[in-house]
């Protein structure tokens, strides 16, 4: 691959993967709110 393509591809993949993982990790680990909340399975 040429350098320009490689830099653009790797930086795009790295940025998008990092932000996606960060947000999803936060969704999984953020403390649940007190009941009643919007989600029935943790009642």
């Amino acid at each position, binding site marked *: *691959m*040429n350098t*320009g*393509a*490689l830099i*653009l*591809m790797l930086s*795009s*993949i790295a940025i*998008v*993967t990092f*932000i*996606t993982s960060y*947000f*999803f990790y*936060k*969704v*999984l680990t*953020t403390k*649940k*709110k007190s009941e*009643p*909340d*919007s*989600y*029935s*399975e*943790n009642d």
Partner: protein
Amino acid sequence: MIKTQSEGWGTRVGLVLAMAGNAVGLGNFLRFPVQAIQNGGGAFIIPYIICFLLMGLPLLMIEWTIGRYGGEKGNHSAPFMMDRMGKKRIWKYIGVFGIFSNIGIAAYYCFIESWTLAYIFHSAIGSFTGMTQNEVVAMFSSYVSLDEATLIPFEALIFFLICLTINVYILSRGLSGGIEKVAKIAVPLLILFGIFLAIKAVTLTAGSEGANFDGILGLNFLWTPTFDTISNPKVWLNAAGQVFFTLSVGMGSIQCYASYVKKKDDIALNSMSAGWMNEFVEVVIGAAIIIPLAVGYFGIDGVKQLAELGGLSIGFKTLPFLFNQWGTFLSTISGIFWFGLLFFAGITSSLAMGMPVMSFLKDEFSWSRKKSAWTFGAIVLALGLPTVFFYNFGVFDEYDYWTGTFSLFLFAMLETILFAWVFKAENGWKEFNHGADFKIPRVYKFIIKYITPVLLIIVFVASTIKPVNNDWEGAFNNLINGKGWSLDNSSVIKQALNSGLREQLENTTDPALRNELEKKILYTDGAKILLLITFFGIAYLVRVASNKRKKERRNET
């Protein structure tokens, strides 16, 4: 109080996956890579990401907020959500688009979804084994023409009915019992299938498995930047269009899903997570499959020609042939994975189209979940059958244009104006951040108030007056030189007048071709009338519901 079955989400992860599944569709794998190679290669990512940050993310914030704000008072469909925000009667009727688009898109989208189901079946039973490229193309043509040459008579119709039944059944199980369960299985699986195929595509080496070039050459082709394209308005409009379609905004489905979130619960982090998950599937996985695979076998020039026909063509007419080169076992697995991935991407989106319609019927007419789901199925069947029977006469494309493009742009533009300028961006920002688990930079309040609405107005106007061949530079030069502005046949105005087909008709003397074009004009006009009847039918129901609310003194809910 009206009695309706209580609806809600089971888990937060389920909601995020359902929202991400709603956004991830066939376009992530078939449209994005083709758009990229046609609009500057790697340089396309720059306008694409800028449009995502300035238009995509703000639209997600707006739609999640409209949804939760409407749901607070028991409104789960766009007309009455918008009514609550805008107070003037007109907003309620603009909200009709939030039901209409879903029905119109579902009618043709379920048809494409059913192709993926049929192709999973054919991959599994080895129908493509030993076929040449031309035979694979012919099989697709036979399939969509309801030709008797297919394995099962009326195969396209049968798979359409099966697909629609699956959708309706899942919808009838409700949010947590149906849609959420499917999303929890489908989204992780489609990511897994996608990663498998992406690895296979980029590790393809010239000389092995019938490949003529390395798959990595395809990645190089897709990501090599042509920076001078960035100054071309066409590239920016295409980037904005791609961001728009990939996020499933302007439909009313995000608002509907979000309306089942309570006010104290977060929507800021949820919306960011779902939106970026879609970007991951599109930029990381979607970009690494069809182009590297196709370049591996056809080379760059071959792929340039294929790209002219669009991603759907590569996905259905080319890939089964390429998988064929990998031996019986791997071709079967790859076919199942590829069409399975497309099916999962499709069904999580089509389910989201059903929910706003069902919610409207449940909220306003106290219908049960089952009755609403089957009614949605019946409407989609009635509107969808013309796309199945008259696919070759342009009905499918007509639906796609008016419901899948025009209505989305129009509705998104109007809802953004409502949110930013009528409801006021300051109030909207406060609503959005209520209960937030993540602090979005305050600059987004400014973006929502000024930049996003202006951008959407530009995109909408641009699609209305699109110049010939989408050549904006040439069109502006002509205008400056006093040569006027020639509209492209795909501009809203010319599309409404069927100008493209009429031009072709004027320029041909071949009786057979004339006959075919006359039929196409007849069927596309028929499709427009059908869509208009649907729109006004929904508007009438909204009026009936509104009067019913007045009688029941439910106006404040």
